[in-house]
C-alpha cells in the first residue's frame, strides 16, 4: 500500500513544490489551501501517514489545524510537520505544544524535506 500525505499551505507554489516532492517519493498527496479546507478534506475520510502544514494561513491557521487534527482519532499518532520560516521561533514552540511532531524551516530543499519526513515516520 502506498503512503499518503496531507499537504496544507495557502501559498499555491509552496503547496505544489511539497506535493511534487512527496509524489515523486511515492506518496499519494491530498492538498489543502488552509486549515479549514484540510479539516474538510480529511474529516471521516482517508487516514494519512504524514501531515505537512504551513502555519500562517487564512480561515484556520496551522496551529489550530494541528489541534483539530489531534482531536480526531485517525490523527492521534500521525506525524505532523510544520513548515515555518526561520524568524518564527516562538511559533515552533506553540506548534509543539499543540501536538506537532517537528518542523521544517523554509527555505528547504527536497532532500531535507524527505529526510525529515523519513525521520518522523514510523518504519
Amino acid at each position, binding site marked *: 500500500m502506498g503512503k499518503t500525505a496531507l499537504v496544507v499551505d*495557502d*501559498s*499555491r*507554489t*509552496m503547496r*505544489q*513544490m511539497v506535493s*511534487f*516532492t512527496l509524489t515523486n517519493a511515492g506518496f499519494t498527496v491530498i492538498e489543502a489551501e488552509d486549515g479549514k479546507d484540510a479539516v474538510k478534506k480529511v474529516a471521516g475520510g482517508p487516514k494519512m501517514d504524514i501531515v505537512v502544514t504551513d502555519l*500562517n*494561513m*487564512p480561515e484556520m491557521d496551522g496551529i489550530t489545524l494541528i489541534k483539530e487534527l489531534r482531536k480526531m482519532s485517525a490523527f492521534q499518532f500521525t506525524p505532523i510537520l510544520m513548515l515555518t*520560516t*526561520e*524568524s518564527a*521561533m*516562538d511559533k*515552533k*514552540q506553540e506548534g509543539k505544544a499543540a501536538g506537532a511532531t*517537528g518542523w*521544517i*524551516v*523554509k*527555505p*528547504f*530543499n*527536497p*532532500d*531535507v524535506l524527505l*529526510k*525529515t519526513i523519513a*525521520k*518522523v515516520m514510523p518504519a
Partner: protein
Amino acid sequence: MSNDFAQFQDAFFDEVAEHLAVVEEGLLALEQQPDDRDLLNKIFRSAHSIKGGAGMFGFTAVAQFTHKMETLLDLLRNGQKVVTPVVADLLLKSTDCLKTLIDATKSGASVDDEAVQRLTAELAAESDLKAQAKVERGPSESSSTPSLTSTSTTTFVIDWTPPEWLFRRGLDPLQIMRELRVLGTLGEIVMDQSRLPELTAIDPETCYLSWRMQLTTAKDLKAIEKVFEFVREDSKLSIEEVRGKESGVKSDGASDSTQPLTPHADEGERPKPLGTILVESGVVSPAVLDHALAQQKKVGEILVEQKAVTPQQLEQALQKQKQESSAQAKKTDTASIRVDTGKIDKLINLVGELVITQSMLSDLGSRFEMRQLPVLLERVAQLERNTREIQERVMGIRMLPIGTAFSRFPRLVRDLSAKAGKKIQLVLAGEETELDKTVIESIGDPLTHLVRNSADHGLEPPEERLDNNKPEVGTIRLNAFHEGGNICITVEDDGRGLHRDKILAKAVKQGLIGENDKLADDQIWPLIFKPGFSTAEKITDVSGRGVGMDVVKRNIESLGGTVSIKTATGKGTTFTLKLPLTLAIIEGMTVRVGKETYIVPLLSILESIQPKEGWVKTVVGKGELMNVRGTYLPLIRLYDVFGLEPEYRTPTDAILLILETEGERVAVMVDEILGQQQVVIKSMEQNFRKVEGIAGATILGDGTVGFILDVRGVLEIARRGVPVAA
C-alpha cells in the same frame, strides 16, 4: 538536487503577482479603515508567502526586502504600532520597490540599489519600536546617511557545541546561523572539528562539530538565546558580550541586496567589497567611502578615455545592452499563463469526442456505400460541431478576467487625487469579464490615459463641485461587459463634461476644421482624438505628460477596436472602448473584388449600400466623393488600391461599404458582399511579408487565402493615389 524546484519559478512569479495585488489593494483599503485587523492579517500573509517562496528559489534580495516589510506589518497586525498615513505610504512605496525587485529578478536586470537601501532603512526604522520611543522622549540622533543606520549594537561571541543527536532530529546547524543572521550581522564563524573521529569511525548521523560565531546585533541576550531554544537541552552554549570597541556601523541587510539578482545568489557567499571591509575596520568613515565611490568611473568611460573604444561604439554597446535586457523582460512577460484545470479537463474531453468522430468517419470511409450518405453527412456535421467547440475552448484558455487590468487603478486614482487636490472615488464593475490575455496587456496604457484624463480634466476641484450643487467627491467609474462578440469598457466620470465651444475654438486654431464649418455634437467630440489636439491650457504632471488622446485612439484601433464619447455639459463624460475579445479571431465581412476575396473587420463597417445614379461627384484636389444622404464621403475603389481587374467599374453596379477609422468615414467600392464570418488571423509578416493595406490573411472555407483589410492603410494608399505593387 535543489534545482528540482526551479521548474516552479514561473508558477511562483504568477502567484507573487497575485500577492502583490492583494498587498496593494489591502494597503489602499487600509487608508480608509486603519484598524481592520483582518485586512492587516491578509496583507501580512501575502508578504509572508512572497518571502517564503523567494527564499525557496534563492531570490535573496526579494526575500530580505519582503522580510523588512513583513516585520513592520507584523507590528501593525499585532497592534504594537498603528497605521498612520506615513506608515501606509512607506508600505505602498515599498510595494512598488518590491515589484521592481521582482521584475528585475525575473529578467535579470539591475535595480536601483539606492532606493532599495533607502526603503530598507526606512522600514527598519519604522519597525524599531525602541528607537522610536527614544525619539519621542528626546531629540533624534539618527544619522542622515540612510543606508548606514547607526544604532546602538553589541557584539556577542557565541560558542556552541550542539548535542550529538542534532542531525537525528532533523535539525540543521545552518538554520540556527540563518536565524542569528536575522537578528543582526553575523560576522566570523569558526568551526571546530577537533572531535571528528577517523573516517571509518564516523557515524554520519552524529554531530561532532562545534562553532564559534560573532554576532553584532541591536537585540539583547534573550533574543539570541531564543534562537537556540529548541537545541538548548544537551547543547553547550555560551554567549558573551564583547567589551571595548563598539562596532557602530551596521548595514542592516542592505549590503546583501547589492548582490547580483540571480537565482541562487547565496550559493557561495560573495566576499565583502573592499569598501565595506575598510569601513568596518574603522580605516575610513562611511562618508569618505561614499565620496570615493561617487568618483568611481564606469568601465565604458575609462575605455573611451583610453581611446580603446569610440564614444559611438560605447553608445551602440549600451543601446544593445538596453535592448537585450528589455527583450528579455518581454520574453518572460509572455512566458506563461495560468489556466484553470477545469478548462483543460473540458478540452481533453472535447478532444476525446473528436477522436471518436474521426474514427467513426474513417470506419465509414473504409467501406462506404452511397446509401450511407445521410450517415456521412451527420458525422461531418458532428465533426464540425466538435471543431467549433474546440476552437472556442482553446481561445477560452487565453481568456482572463479584465480585473487584472483594473487592479492598477485604485492606486493610480489615489495618487492622482492627492496630486490634483481633488476628492475622487473609484468604482469598478465587471472585473470578472473575460478577454484575451494579449488584449488585456495592451489596454492597460490607453485605459490609464483615460482615467488620468478624467481625474485631471473631467472632474472639478471640490469647491467648484460644491458651487454647482454636486457632491464634493467626484466619481470615476470603470465598467466592463460583453456585448455581442465584443467587450465594452467604459470610463465614466461625473465631472464638467466636454466643452463644445472650447473644442471648436481649438480645432479651428489647429486648422482641423474651417471657421464656418457647421458641426453636429457627435462630430465635435471626436475632434479631441485628432493628433496634436488638447484643450488643457497646460500639460500638468498628472495628465499624461503630453501624450494626447490621439494615442489612445490609435492604440485601441490597432487592437481592432473603437472609441466613442458621450458627454453632457456639467454632468460628465463617458468614453466607451469597444474591443474584440481576442486578437486571434476577427468577425469579418467577406467581400469580392474581381477574383480576390477580402475580409473587412466588422467593427469598422457602418453600413453597406447600393449607390444610386448621380451620387458621385468629382472635386478638384479631393478626388471622387460619394454623396451618401447629404454627406460627402471620399470614394475608394478597392480595385484601384490593389491594382486588380474588377467585375464592375460603374458605382451603381457595385456595392459600397461605409467604413470608419479614426473618426474618418469613407465609402469603399467592392463587387459583391459574400457574407459574414469569423476568421482566424494569420500574420502576413510571419508567413510572407508585410503588405500595405493588408492586416493579415486567413484560410477561407474553400481552402483559398483571403486577405484581411487594414482600413487605415487602404485609406492612406487611396490618398496617395498609387496602387500597391503586387
